[in-house]
């Protein structure tokens, strides 16, 4: 069942890429949405309960290395899988247009399938293979369908050497993440040698080097300050679907990886304090960076760093509340930031720019529903209770307050304090963004038009998901109630 859920989107994606001249964009998008829906339904159906590994598939693969094709859905990965599949469906729906390139749909499908592969891998090498498989198509998505970012980005001088900014950003993204993956691979090798097995359920490593390498690798991916500078460039340059996938799914590869590997690494506790502090600093750092951004997509991208900071802080506590916080925070961030990027993408489609000053004020009056959606997404992102974004942050705070077994009180409470400052600053920059965009004397613009049906469906689905998760957090949290942190053991 898992195999089918992974293969259907992957095969449809490959076929769309091969036969990109044979199908029209709209057909391709429908096909993609269908494939992702199949995958969503299958993953939803495969669930057998939180105590088991659901839908386990275990086939021998590379015997000499001890690597096996071992797939399965655990209590940690299930929410990630459902969120990824949902985002995949919505991305395909978003691409329902005549001018969509079928190859783009194909790439989206392949990326989604590879990411779901990461989430359902129970073999470290297989995890890595999927991890890399998700990376490369993203380069094409950003480089070929992206648009040049504003020149205020990092390395503007370097950028001029490239023909277009999107390719520069894409290459930057690739270099960073591949660098991280290289560290991760070495870490996996060390774990494999140390524990004698690559199976997540059996592996264990007492090596400090493995812990450091793996955490560094995921720190690039997540990203944790100071390895984050690729992210604003890549997110702002990518096309809308690409941004959404990057934010909603790609960053989760990092957080999920951290959760997964923290159960394997015995020396994670030595790294955890640094992770906690880096995550907490990231929350404040990114919030400050957001406060003066003009480009909306860059703002959302930076805000992602902050949310990931909460997740990393939670993971580093290694407590059950931390686990729930990490999973809930990741899933909620996927939905909320997905919505924000869809909204920013709609604005960019209309006005040709994501610059808030050039889009102009008074969107409440110019395109009310779009403005309301944006405000709702912003409010959810700043963690208003009752919306999905809140519970992850709250549980992170709680995990930090409780300190957990791994951290020391000074470290955890420093993280807590920084996180609180970050929440305050997050409110400040989103209020500023709402003030700059939604409110103010409207100046009519040619691009003014309210949500189309496609946009309304995609964003509406996310809004519903955000509100439902916000009002019934038990949907996810019940999975973790009595289970201790080391679920994968």
């Amino acid at each position, binding site marked *: 069942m898992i195999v089918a859920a992974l293969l259907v989107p992957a095969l449809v994606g490959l076929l769309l890429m091969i036969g990109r001249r044979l199908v029209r964009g709209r057909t391709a998008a429908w096909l993609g949405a269908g494939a992702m829906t199949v995958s969503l339904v299958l993953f939803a159906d495969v669930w057998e309960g939180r105590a088991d590994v659901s839908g386990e598939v275990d086939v021998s693969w590379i015997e000499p290395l001890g690597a096996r094709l071992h797939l399965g859905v655990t209590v940690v990965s299930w929410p990630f899988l459902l969120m990824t599949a949902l985002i995949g469906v919505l991305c395909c729906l978003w691409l329902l247009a005549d001018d969509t390139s079928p190859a783009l749909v194909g790439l989206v499908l392949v990326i989604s399938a590879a990411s779901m592969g990461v989430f359902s891998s129970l073999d470290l090498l297989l995890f890595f293979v999927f991890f890399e498989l998700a990376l490369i198509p993203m380069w094409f998505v950003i480089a070929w369908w992206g648009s040049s970012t504003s020149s205020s980005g990092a*390395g503007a001088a370097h950028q001029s050497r490239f023909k277009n900014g999107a390719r520069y950003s894409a290459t930057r993204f690739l270099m960073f993440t591949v660098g991280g993956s290289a560290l991760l691979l070495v870490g996996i090798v060390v774990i494999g040698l140390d524990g004698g097995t690559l199976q997540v359920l059996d592996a264990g490593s007492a090596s400090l080097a493995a812990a450091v390498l793996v955490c560094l690798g995921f720190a690039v991916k997540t990203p944790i300050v100071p390895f984050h500078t690729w992210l604003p460039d890549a997110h702002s340059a990518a096309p809308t679907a690409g941004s959404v996938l990057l934010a909603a799914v790609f960053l989760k590869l990092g957080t999920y990886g951290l959760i997964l590997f923290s159960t394997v690494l015995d020396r994670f506790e030595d790294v955890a304090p640094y992770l906690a502090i880096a995550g907490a600093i990231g929350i404040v750092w990114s919030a400050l*960076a957001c406060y*003066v951004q003009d480009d909306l997509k860059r703002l959302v991208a930076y805000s992602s760093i902050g949310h990931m900071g909460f997740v990393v802080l939670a993971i580093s506590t290694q407590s059950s*509340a931390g686990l729930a916080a990490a999973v809930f925070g990741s899933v909620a961030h996927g939905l909320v930031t997905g919505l924000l990027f869809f909204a920013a993408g709609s604005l960019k489609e209309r006005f040709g720019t994501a610059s808030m000053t050039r889009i102009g004020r*008074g969107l409440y009056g110019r395109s009310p529903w779009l403005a309301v959606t944006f405000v709702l997404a912003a409010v959810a992102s700043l963690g208003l209770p*009752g919306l999905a974004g809140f519970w992850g942050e709250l549980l992170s705070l709680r995990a930090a307050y409780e300190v957990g077994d791994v951290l020391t009180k000074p470290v955890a409470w420093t993280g807590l304090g920084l996180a609180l400052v970050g929440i*305050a600053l997050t*409110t400040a920059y989103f209020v500023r963004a709402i003030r700059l965009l939604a409110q103010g004397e409207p100046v009519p613009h040619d691009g003014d038009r309210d949500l189309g049906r496609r946009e309304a469906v995609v964003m509406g689905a996310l809004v519903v998901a955000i509100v439902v998760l916000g009002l019934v957090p038990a949907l996810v949290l019940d999975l973790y109630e009595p289970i201790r942190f080391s679920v994968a053991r």
Partner: protein
Amino acid sequence: MRSVLRSHWLYVALTAVLALVAAIWAVPHLSEPGWFAYAPDPTGFTPPLPTLSPDLFLFPASAQIVLLAVGVGLLVQIYSTAYLGHHQRYRSYAMVIVLFLVAMIAVVGTTNLWVLLVGWEVMGLCSYLLIGHEWETGEARAGAAKAFLVTRIADLGLVLAILVIGETYGTYDLLGAQPLDGEAKNATAIGLLVLVAVVGKSAQFPLHSWLPDAMPGPTPITALIHAATMVAAGVYLAARMLPFYADSTVALTAMAVIAGITMLMGALFALVQTDLKRALAWSTVSQLALMFAAVAASDPEAGLDHLVAHGVFKALLFLGCGCLMHAVGTSALSAMGGMRRPMPVTFWTMTIGFAALAGIVPTAGFFTKDSVLHALESATEGDGALAGGTAWALFVVALITSLVTAAYATRLWLKTLLGPAPGGLDAHEAPLAMTGPLVVLAVATFAVSIGQPFHHGIGVVSTVIAAAGIGLVLLMWRRGSSLDWAPAPLAAELGLDRPFSRWVPRLTGDVASAVVDLDRDAVDVYPRGGAAAAALGTRGLALVQSRNVQRYATVLAAGVVVLVVVGVVVS
């Protein structure tokens, strides 16, 4: 037109249904005995993950507040059909009011701390949206942003307080988390954190400046949210949480000090305002401080009684202010005067409101303020958690505040309703939908006083003080004073707003710019350094890759020679 009208009454009907349901639910609880006293139910000491189960539960005090909220809400909704019905964004406005009422009921009517928090923050969001209802104007935008930021940052205190409660008592349920006798743990921490939250929400010193700045919001909203209910919810929360920190002298003293500073400051600021709405806003700040003083004196019941009474008469005053603004088009005091003849209903109802504010028998304002003063006086005996000295200071400040309150109430009454009408003013009575709620509230101002306790000694003292304040102002007015006092420091509101309006934004902006620069120039050094190193390495390697066969051969030969030499030497 008819459909528009119908759609207006649709929202009123919606609110009415909500109010009715809430009333059916709340009224039976009014007569139940007891204050926030319930049997402790200690459960396990690891708090569960948060859930949002409704856990509805009402105490008599909270039932009162539910009724106050839905009652004022319904009146405001009716009032708004006339006041804002023509507005193109009436629909969203009315819906947000309904949402606000639901949130308010959630805050008051639940024992689940998370539901309480959700309601608490949703109220803040509604306040933000409604202050910013006129988002075309810069004032409204700035006021909304400030209100939201200040309250939300203060709300972090509540989040932390809930976390601490969960850690301390092992549950996030207010009933389950009641401390056993004399076993309130972490009392000071919880108390101070709750204090941070309520100081923000109820606009107490030093986070007070957002409330006067919230006045660009529509006046009915000011009446509902920024006078009667939301800001008062801070008092409710402080009273509700009192069992958690009743033992903590630190928390109660901090609350008393804040209340003392705020009540006097608010009253003095109200005395010198030239704008009616802003004056009433400062008056609200001052009155809320009076309620906090009661809570700090360990008599939350008095505080909540005053909350209800204040909610009624302050809503009355703000709605009356809305009628005046409807008539003269501005809220500036200088544009008002001589309202008795053109606007009799507004005149008489507002007079009742001002009387209640000043604390004149037999309005509700008198009785509840009487209870508060009595509570403060009782606390001076020093057998509570509050030290005797602190209580004495607080009591004296409260008496002075009463004097100032009576004075500014009289001044506002004289300036807005009596006095010479400004030239060219063509005031006329507001429509029935607006005057109706005024009458209802005026009646309620008296009705609430039914059954209120009365304390002889304090009652006489406070009546004397109020009479003194009123008499003083009347005397000066008779003598021809313009009543426009504006000593520079008071008019500038002591510059207390400066940190929030200038320093913090500027500091944040500067730090943020620095961060962006650092992000570009400092953090990005290692990838760029890596790229430069790679380029350098490429250039070095390019030297070797000369496309010259002979050079390759030379290198090869040299390599062989070196290898042989090494081999020989090693062997």
